[in-house]
Structures are given as C-alpha cells and as structure tokens.
C-alpha cells in the first residue's frame, strides 16, 4: 500500500463491514445497504435505458452489490484510482459483485488507456458517480469524470486520437482550435466535421441528424 494511503476496515451500526480510506468513510457508518439502495433509486431510470454502466468509485462495494441484485444482467465496469480499495471490496463482497468488472487506473490521466473503458464509452453507457468514494480524492476523480465525458476539447481530442474511427471524422487541428474553456456540444462536433469530412458517411449522417435535434 502507498505510504500516504491508509485503508481501514470498520463495522457499521447495521453490522456490515465498511472501508475507510485516509480517514474518509467509503460508505454510511449507519446502514451502507440502505445508502446503496438510495443511490440506485436516483440512477434507476438512466440504468434502465443503458446498455452498460460505468461506476466511478468502488466505495465499500455495497452500491455495486445492489446494482448486481437489481440489474443482474447489466454489464458493469467499476473504476477506482486505488487498487487496494478494489481488493478490499472484493474481500467484503466476494461473488456478490460477480457481474462487475473492476479497473484500477494508476492516474486520472490514464483512464482512457483501458480498452475496456473505451468499449463502455462506445455504448449507451450510464455514468454513475459514487460520491463517498470520490470524496477521498475529489480533484483526481473530477478529472476522471471529465475525461470520460469528453466535453472538454483537450479530453475529447485525447479520445479522438485513440479511436481510429474518429480521427478522420474530427480533424485534431479543428478541435485544438476551439475555445478550451467551453464545454463541447453536438454543435461543436458538427462544426469539427468541416466541409470535407473524411470519416465514414454513416458517422456524418449520425452527427448531422443529432444536430437537427438541438436546433
């Protein structure tokens, strides 16, 4: 374990084991299962309409277990910046999180290195944040989220440069020429296409059709 990180295992008032990272609880100290149900309640509509679920933060794993219980067929990938936390969650829940894959990324900048993450992002993904996990390292997790959303030109170009399908569709110089402070929308992607789009015609149709929906 990293010398700067202190991971502890405690027992909640409900009797369930929970984790504490650097003094931050990774789940409710009263009733982590109830907390997990509430987390899922908020996300249920989005999860129902998605093919895959990308969970950012593994916490003490109760939210993943709840997700598994209610959506046993959902394809779930849980991302954490701390590999030790993933091991500890597996230790608590064992096979209860069987449908969840885990990805421990070494740093926020490398989150898109994983082909599994990129595969998830190429689907109708539901991005589900687990706030207690992120509270342990808020700045880093915020960047992870921003990279996954690709709304900032820098992070979008990072994605485009990794995905061959899009490198010809969205010329990098066009993306780099955009206002770095503003968040990208479909209209920006339409603008990036330019007059001489070289991507797959199908992709051009899709971008242009979506642009019509925001007119």
């Amino acid at each position: 374990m990293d010398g700067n990180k202190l991971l502890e295992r405690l027992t909640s008032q409900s009797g369930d084991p929970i984790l504490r990272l650097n003094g931050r609880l990774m789940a409710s100290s009263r009733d982590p299962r109830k907390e997990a149900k509430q987390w899922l309640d908020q996300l249920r509509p989005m999860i129902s309409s998605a093919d895959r679920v990308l969970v950012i933060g593994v916490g003490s794993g109760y939210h993943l277990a709840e997700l598994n219980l209610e959506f046993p067929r959902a394809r779930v990938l849980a991302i954490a910046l701390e590999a030790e936390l993933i091991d500890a969650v597996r230790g608590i829940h064992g096979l209860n999180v069987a449908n969840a894959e885990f990805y421990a990324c070494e740093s926020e900048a490398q989150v898109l290195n994983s082909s599994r993450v990129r595969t998830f992002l190429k689907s109708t993904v539901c991005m589900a944040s687990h706030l207690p996990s992120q509270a342990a390292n808020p700045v880093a997790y915020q960047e992870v989220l921003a990279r996954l959303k690709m709304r900032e030109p820098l992070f979008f170009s990072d994605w485009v440069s990794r995905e061959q399908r899009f490198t010809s569709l969205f010329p990098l110089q066009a993306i780099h020429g955009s206002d770095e402070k503003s968040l990208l929308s479909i209209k920006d992607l339409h603008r990036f296409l330019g007059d001489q789009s070289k991507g797959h015609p199908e992709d051009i149709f899709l971008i242009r059709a979506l642009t019509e929906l925001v007119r």
Partner: protein
Amino acid sequence: MKILVVSLLRIGDLLMAAPVIQGLQRKYPGSRIDLLGNKSCQHVVPLLPCVEVFHAFDRDQFQSELADPDQPVLKPFFRLEKFMMGIRQERYDLVVNLTHNRLSGWLCGLIDGKETAGLHLDSRGRPAFGSPWFQYLNDRADVRGAEIFHFTDIFWFGSGLTATDRQWELRRTDSGRAEAVHLRRGLDSYILVQAFTSEAKKEWGGESWQHALRMIQAKDPSARFLIMGAPNEAARVDSVVGNLVDMGVQARAAVCSFAGALSLLDSARLLITGDTSIKHLAAATPCRVIELSLGSSDWRRTGVYNAGNFIVQPKVTCGPCSHSTPCDQAQHLCALQLAPDALADIVHAVLKGNETELLAIARSHGHKFEMAKTYFTGGGYWQAVAVGRALEAADLKEWIDKLTTKLILEGAHLEALGPYGTEATRMGDWMKRQFPALPARTWATLMQSVDRETQTHHSVALDAGVRLASLVRASHASRTVELGEMRHLQVRIEDAERRLNVRRRLMRSLKDAVEAVI
C-alpha cells in the same frame, strides 16, 4: 417486400399518414409494413391496422442527453447508431418518408432502403425526393395558396399510390370499446366536443365554447354533450363541464385515450373540434365533423380528411398565421371573429341535415368567416368547397390549377397521350354534382374566362424569355454572365410552358366533358 414508413412528427401527422399506410398494404399485398415514429406516438400505433413493427424514436431522451453536460458528449451518437443500425439491418425494399424535415432526411439517408420516396439526404446534405410530389411538398412548404394539396394526398401520390378511392380504417381495441361504453353510460345519442388544442393560437376560448353549447342546447333540448380531453387535460375538462352544468347544459366529461376516443366517435352524432388529432381520428369513422380552423391551422393542408364534413375559418388578414410564433395581435382576432351563436346555428343545421339553412348561414356570415364542405374529387384528392358562394371563375381556375399540377407531377406532359380525357371526365362529373342547378350558359362563360386566363402562362414564359434574351445580350457586351438569374429565368420559362401545354390539353378535354354532362 419490406416497407418502412417514417413519420417523425406528432400524433395528428401520424394519423394523417394512416390512409397511405393502408394504401401501401393494398398496393403490395403480403408486404410487411413497419413504422419509424416518435416514442410519444406509440399509444396510437395499435390503432393502425397494417403496422407490424414500430421503431420508437425517443426524441426526448436524445434531446435530454444532448443537453446534459454530465453525459458523455458521444453518448447520444452511440445511442442513435445502435437504433439506426437496427433499422438498417432490416434491409427495407421501400422507405417512405412522410415527415419532410432535415432530421428525417438524414435518418432516411442512413437507412439506405433499396428505394426511397420522400426527403432523404446524402452525406453532403444534398436532397433527393424520390417523387415529384415530395419535391412539390418541398417547394410549396411556405406557400399559402388555394391550389395546395392536402398533406395526405401529397403523401398518397408521392408514395406511388394511384387509386382514386380512399378506403381506410383504424383498428378498434377492446380497451377502447370498454372506455367508450363507460363514458357514454346511458347515452344513445351524443355530441362530442374537443375544445382543447395543442396550441393556444388554435383555441377558441372556454367562454365561446360554453356560450355556443348553451345555445345549441336551447335549440335542441335533447342534445347531450361529451366534453373530450386527454388524461393530462382532465382538470380543464372538469372546469368546462362544471360551468356548462351550471348553465343548464347537459354535459359530462369524457377524458379518454385515443382508443377510447375512436370508439366514442363511432356512435357520436357529431364532433365539434378545433384543429386537433381527434379530427383525424374522426375521419376514419362515420361521425360528421365541424372543424374550427383558427390561428395557424391551415385546413387546405391538414383539414379533416374525409367527405361530407364542414370547416369553419374566420376571415382575418393575419390568418392562417405561422406555426412557430405566438399570436402577434392585440386580441385573438380569429377567435373573436367567430361568434358562438353562428356556430350554434351551423351545428343545428348540420344535425338536421338542412343544406338550405347552411347555405343561408354561410351567406349571412360570409363577411365574418368562410364555411367549406369537404369532398373527394373524381381525381382522387381531397377538396373543401366554400358553402353558400356562387361558383366563380376563380373557383374553377383553382380546381383546374390543382388538376394541372397533379397531371404535371404525374408526368402527363411527358406523354404523347396523357390521361386528360379521364381526368376531365371525372372532374366534369364532380362539378356537375356540386352545382347541379347551374345553367349551361354560365358553365360556358366560366370556362371561357378560365381559358383566357390560361394565356397568362404564355405571357409569363414570354416575359421571362425577353428578359433572358436581354441578359444574354448584356453578357456579350460586358463579358460577365449572370448565371444564377439566367438559370432562374430558364426554369420559369420551362415551368410556364409545361403548365401552358398541360392546361391547354386539359381545358380541351374538360370543355368536351362539361358539354357532355351539362
């Protein structure tokens, strides 16, 4: 054969497509017809008898994901890709786009059917229409002329359907029948009222409705009213019904689904409605309809698509107004122009089937509003004809213009022997039925007047030709070429010559046909 019909607008638009869907089924027996439509219309799909698979386009979800900065920017892209690839894999033989907006154009371009009728775009955004009828729809999108065809007719002919009859129906459901039985409990005879519309501009106003119904009740004490509304309009319906009951009107609420409304319409004496999707439901039932065409309602394009119904449109200089902007008048002029007592008189006359009384009402209120009766012409398209007005050369010109347009769109001008005789005979028969008492001499005068007017097309072509010649001379002198204007003039000349040619041939046949029947 696999056919996909695309209708990505609202429920009323989808219902207007129903005759076309069934027409396709009759033209291609044994074919499978699927529908691509907005998810918000899915509760109407079970009423469409021929639709096998409904591809629900979740516009709301796409729009919410596109607008939400917390969603990955490409999420709607991948969602749309998955949705469209599912449709594309069906490998449709024929795609019929009845939507005519750019979104549907891009989607139809992507579906890549073996054949496509209706707007579809290529990857550079260049449009193709698959039929001159859809090109006509595109060119006439903003035209408010009298010669405009009804949308359903454009869709019908544009889809390659040529039959002149319009046999179509909607499917009644058990739940709809049960709903209707419950709502009309104890009533054998009732008048349906659909007072609420999707746009404030199209509304007549609660007070006007209440006064009109009170007057109808006074004229016909046995009248019973069911005030219709969708479940989300229940509070408004209850409020109107409460006021009516206080005024002594025998009214009750009929909040129901579309399936319930359809079954209610089957047994109703009459539907009085604004420009609503309920009127399109009614067009598939024997129920007579009085449609109040207010605000942006353009009855020439979207009027109740059946014969024997009435459309009332106030005469105001600002109407029909634009769909996209709110009413810019200090008062809702078109709604004020139609007085409740006038509607009560019309309803009374329609219920009694008294055409003479209707004629008198139309004449006495002719300065305030126009009343039109709906027909299917012999040529197989819908037409509404003003009630109470003497036949004028302008009316005849409008009908001949419309028929000329139909012949051109069907390519009659390219044939040595076009279907002029057939069309003229149908039209002559139809005109005789509309005006049985008109003397032969009046017919002859009117025909001569229209004949003279035909020459204006020649003048248009001539003027454009003179202008084109002067442009050519100027370009020789200045060594610059006004290509844009030249092309425009050339199109005008070709168009005018085409119309002149078709109309001359049509008029010749029509004169013979009119002489034969009158």
